[in-house]
């Protein structure tokens, strides 16, 4: 695998792990518990942005936006 692709994939994974921690995805926390402060929500948004950026790079690497072709999406 292209090392850059691997690196981007791991960035996506790290972002998802961070998001999971921010969201306190713990089955033992009671259902009615509020878990996301504004600060954690901002951190979660940063994680989503990081993952999105990495996915964009991956999409570009896979030639989704190759010049001369009609965009697929």
């Amino acid at each position, binding site marked *: 695998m292209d090392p850059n692709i691997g690196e981007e994939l791991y960035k996506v994974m790290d972002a998802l792990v*961070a998001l999971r921690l921010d969201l306190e995805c713990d089955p033992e926390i009671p259902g009615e518990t509020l878990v996301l402060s504004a600060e954690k929500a901002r951190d979660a948004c940063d994680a989503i942005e990081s993952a999105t950026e990495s996915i964009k790079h991956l999409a570009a690497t896979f030639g989704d936006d190759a010049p001369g072709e009609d965009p697929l999406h």
Partner: protein
Amino acid sequence: MRPRTAAGFRSSVLSRVAGTDLASVVFKDFAMDDAATRLRVFVVEDSPIILKRLVAAIEEAGAELAGHSDSAPGAIAALASVPTDVVIIDIQLRSGTGFDVLRALQDMTPGRSTIKIVLTNHPGSAYRERSFQLGATMFYDKSSESRQAIEFVHQLAARRRMAGKVSRNVEASRSNHLRMPESNNRRS
């Protein structure tokens, strides 16, 4: 999911500690001299967003961030001089790998007794076995077991606090005992 431990450790210890916290077993080898200080945790992680969560978790646990590095050479250099009880180690780093860090810790006198927690997105058996061969205490899959790794650090920090209280109580008792004859004399 139960955290993974070194093969020998797993067979000899986990069966004995069913129903107790694993931290108490891991922590029992810590020197009581350290009991007066907060748990010191060093983080070797190249992802800023994961580092941020780990640092927050360490602070929430009442532990102290001993330092952090995003590369193996940086971590090895720092760990040679920074007193550390626990090291959280990612395998894939900006430069070098977590295996380099584990290997270096084996050669450091204080490093051998440091609790080494591997937290990685490479959960395969080859990575796990290599980590344990190089002295890892615990091995967690970052994508599914980060919460457990954090919980383990919380347990260790709680054990350290408990050890600190015991140590202070022993010290206080000793001081009272030493003062007792003098105060008795004064009364008589």
